[in-house]
């Protein structure tokens, strides 16, 4: 064997060893530790569900969204907290489960990754919440709600509930019912606010006008029941002064000019007898008995808002009809929704007279110098264990801003205020506070038209 052959053998051996080592390393790097290629990204295991959909305010502000690690964030905290609601915070892999508010009712859509934009204006929402929360604290109410509706379109600009609730703060979820969207899911007696609707029905039927006289003492017996008035007034009243004194006796006497079916018919056309048409949103069924079941006392009760239950949302939409030239528009909560056509209920000249009467009769607690404000107070007893409580009341106010050619309709309800219980005392100031802030937002100085 020559020296050259020996050198070649070492070269070949070295080559073989290197071959083996590189083959092993190459196999490791390419086969075992290969970076994922686009071709290898086809799902092999269970499909990862899409991120839970977001909820946005009308201006695009996120009210609820999910991060890539599937945490649910409520960036504005208590703003519209009860409306937005909350769910189970998902732990990494699933979609979470909405439990309350829109998180609960819209869970089928949100869990499919569908995002929704609400009609809520965050500034109006904040204004309504600040006023409501202050009003609840001052009146000692158990809870309260305030709705602001865009009068021509029925778009809900604010759905405020109180006390404040932050859906991101888990510790607040066990604190009573502060998480509940009372505006939609609690049915209440609307009380004297309904007198305005009764008056509009009478005028629309041609059975009365604002100057129609009525002899209305401070109390009246119907069947075995006695109807009492709260505010002292002379016995000789007109329909307008009946509204001003909020006379139960007066409105019940005037209401007898129409049949119970006629009044119920207006309730039906104002959609007070059916669930509010907000698809996919939880709301309470109103409780209104058929007129066939009304005796004289029940008819009288209905004329001033007792004996039936509607949600504050129902009341807002019904009142909105008066501000919208007598045309009912269904409440809207989603920006993408196609509005339903307005449904005429009252003649425009009737509602115009009603608006004027409401402005003239407005309580001092709901007046604002230099501005046109109007509405109607209500104070309703609450039924506890099949009978009216003597301690628990609901204080209400429903009105317009401005009172002439309204831009928004506002309804306030306070449940179980302590001490001062009347709508004029505790609910009307909240309305005034909201109106004052709205005028600021709109750039509307007192006594002037809005600044362009």
């Amino acid at each position, binding site marked *: 064997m020559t020296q050259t052959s020996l050198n070649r053998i070492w070269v070949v051996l070295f080559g073989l060893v290197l071959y083996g080592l*590189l083959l092993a390393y190459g196999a490791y790097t390419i086969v075992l530790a290969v970076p994922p290629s686009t071709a290898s990204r086809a799902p092999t295991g269970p499909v990862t569900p899409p991120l839970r959909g977001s909820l946005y305010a009308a201006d695009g502000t996120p009210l609820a969204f999910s991060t890539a690690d599937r945490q649910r964030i409520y960036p504005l905290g*208590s703003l519209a907290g009860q409306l937005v609601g909350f769910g189970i915070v998902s732990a990494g892999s699933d979609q979470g489960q909405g439990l309350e508010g829109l998180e609960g009712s819209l869970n089928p859509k949100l869990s499919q990754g569908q995002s929704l934009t609400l009609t809520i204006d965050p500034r109006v929402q904040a204004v309504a919440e600040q006023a409501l929360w202050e009003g609840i604290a001052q009146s000692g109410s158990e809870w309260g709600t305030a709705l602001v509706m865009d009068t021509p379109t029925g778009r809900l600009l604010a759905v405020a509930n109180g006390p404040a609730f932050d859906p991101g703060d888990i510790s607040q979820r066990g604190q009573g019912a502060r998480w509940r969207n009372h505006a939609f899911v609690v049915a209440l007696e609307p009380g004297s606010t309904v007198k305005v609707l009764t008056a509009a029905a009478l005028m629309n039927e041609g059975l009365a006008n604002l100057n129609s006289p009525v002899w209305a003492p401070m109390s009246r017996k119907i069947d075995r029941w006695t109807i009492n008035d709260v505010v002292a007034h002379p016995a000789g009243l007109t329909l307008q002064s009946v509204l001003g004194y909020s006379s139960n006796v007066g409105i019940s006497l005037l209401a007898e000019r129409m049949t119970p079916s006629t009044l119920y018919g207006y309730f039906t056309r104002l959609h007070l007898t059916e669930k509010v048409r907000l698809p996919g949103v939880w709301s309470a069924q109103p409780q209104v008995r058929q007129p066939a079941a009304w005796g004289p006392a029940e008819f009288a009760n209905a004329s001033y808002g007792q004996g039936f239950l509607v949600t504050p949302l129902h009341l807002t939409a019904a009142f909105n009809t008066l501000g919208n030239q007598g045309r009912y528009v269904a409440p809207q909560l989603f920006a993408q929704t196609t509005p339903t056509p307005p449904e005429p209920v009252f003649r425009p000249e009737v509602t115009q007279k009603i608006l004027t009467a409401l402005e003239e009769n407005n309580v001092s607690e709901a007046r604002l110098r230099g501005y046109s404000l109007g509405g109607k107070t209500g104070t309703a007893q609450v039924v506890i264990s099949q009978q009216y409580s003597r301690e628990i009341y609901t204080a209400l106010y429903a009105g317009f801003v401005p009172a002439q050619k309204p831009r928004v309709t506002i309804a306030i309800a306070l449940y179980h205020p302590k001490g001062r219980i009347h709508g004029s005392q505790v609910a009307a100031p909240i309305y005034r506070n909201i109106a004052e802030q709205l005028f600021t937002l709109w750039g509307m100085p*007192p006594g002037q038209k809005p600044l362009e």
Partner: protein
Amino acid sequence: MNRVLRWGSFYLLLLLIWAGVGALNQNQRLVLSTLNEEKTALEQDYNLLMVTQLQQTSPHRLYRWASQQGYVPLSQGNWQREVGQP
């Protein structure tokens, strides 16, 4: 023997290319992993910043600020200054 050397060199070249591709892939994988970590961190930062921004500019906070500054409730005096009246 020359043939063996030629094929050996050819195999060696192929193996070097193969190993080079593998090493490149390893490196890319490392870079991708780092980028993914950075992306996750940036997303968390973005979410935190967005939430902070939304909270700092939330209507409630703005309202409190405006109240402290005396802008709300808007007095008649403020309105008069706004519209240029005496």
